[in-house]
């Protein structure tokens, strides 16, 4: 039988990923640090609820995103804008030759709603599967897929790379799930 590591010893390993995920949600360094701090304290006091041997990163990410959304609901600093429509109206579509310029991409990424950034980072960048993301977000797998497709389509539209919202809507979900898992090394 393999010995299971004390989760307290494992926590520091997840700090960079927690902060990267927090930055994806807040897009602000100071706010991301505060969010990670709250997450660590909550995780520490609830460690008895963590199932040893299960995915600690997924557990921590869940605490972080729940903390973020409950704080957001409480403070109401942002106008409710789940699809980023209002934020996007201030954004100037970049000129390009069909290739994405990173600076333009990050500017467009900032225009998305936190919900859109969350789903894209979870399944598109941090190496979680659609199933894992669904567990973290507390929604059905199909909801994660449609949210991710809508968020990609919105990014494409902001970047002037596609005509409309439905461009990516029928992308094959199976392929996406495989790609999500293949990105594990980035996590």
């Amino acid at each position, binding site marked *: 039988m393999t010995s299971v590591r004390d989760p*307290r010893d494992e*926590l*520091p390993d997840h*700090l*960079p*990923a927690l*902060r*990267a995920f927090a*930055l*994806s949600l807040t897009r602000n360094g100071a706010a991301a*640090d505060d969010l*990670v*701090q709250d997450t*660590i*304290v909550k995780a*520490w006091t609830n460690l008895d609820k963590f199932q040893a041997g299960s995915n600690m990163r997924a557990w921590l990410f869940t605490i972080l995103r729940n903390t973020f959304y409950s704080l957001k609901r409480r403070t109401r600093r942002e106008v409710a804008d789940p699809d980023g429509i209002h934020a996007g109206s201030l954004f100037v579509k970049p000129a390009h030759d*069909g*290739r*994405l310029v*990173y600076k333009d*991409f*990050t500017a467009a*990424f900032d225009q998305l709603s936190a919900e859109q950034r969350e789903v*894209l*980072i979870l399944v*598109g*960048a*941090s190496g979680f599967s659609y199933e894992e993301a669904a567990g973290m977000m507390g929604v059905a797998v199909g909801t994660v897929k449609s949210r991710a497709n809508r968020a*990609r389509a919105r*990014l*494409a539209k902001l970047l002037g*790379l*596609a005509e409309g919202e439905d*461009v*990516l809507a029928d*992308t094959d979900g199976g392929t996406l799930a495989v*790609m999500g898992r293949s*990105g594990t090394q*980035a996590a």
Partner: protein
Amino acid sequence: MLEHMTGQDKKSSLKEQIDENLRRVYQDALNEEVPDRLKQLLEQLRAKEAGK
């Protein structure tokens, strides 16, 4: 080159470009130094627990 691609090719190329950039956004954030106060917080929590 883009005009020779089928609709499906364009779609997957677009998705690849988006995901490539998403990974870079995440990787850039991962590469940032974790502030000392977050590392210290873990040490403080551990010290507090040891003192119980």
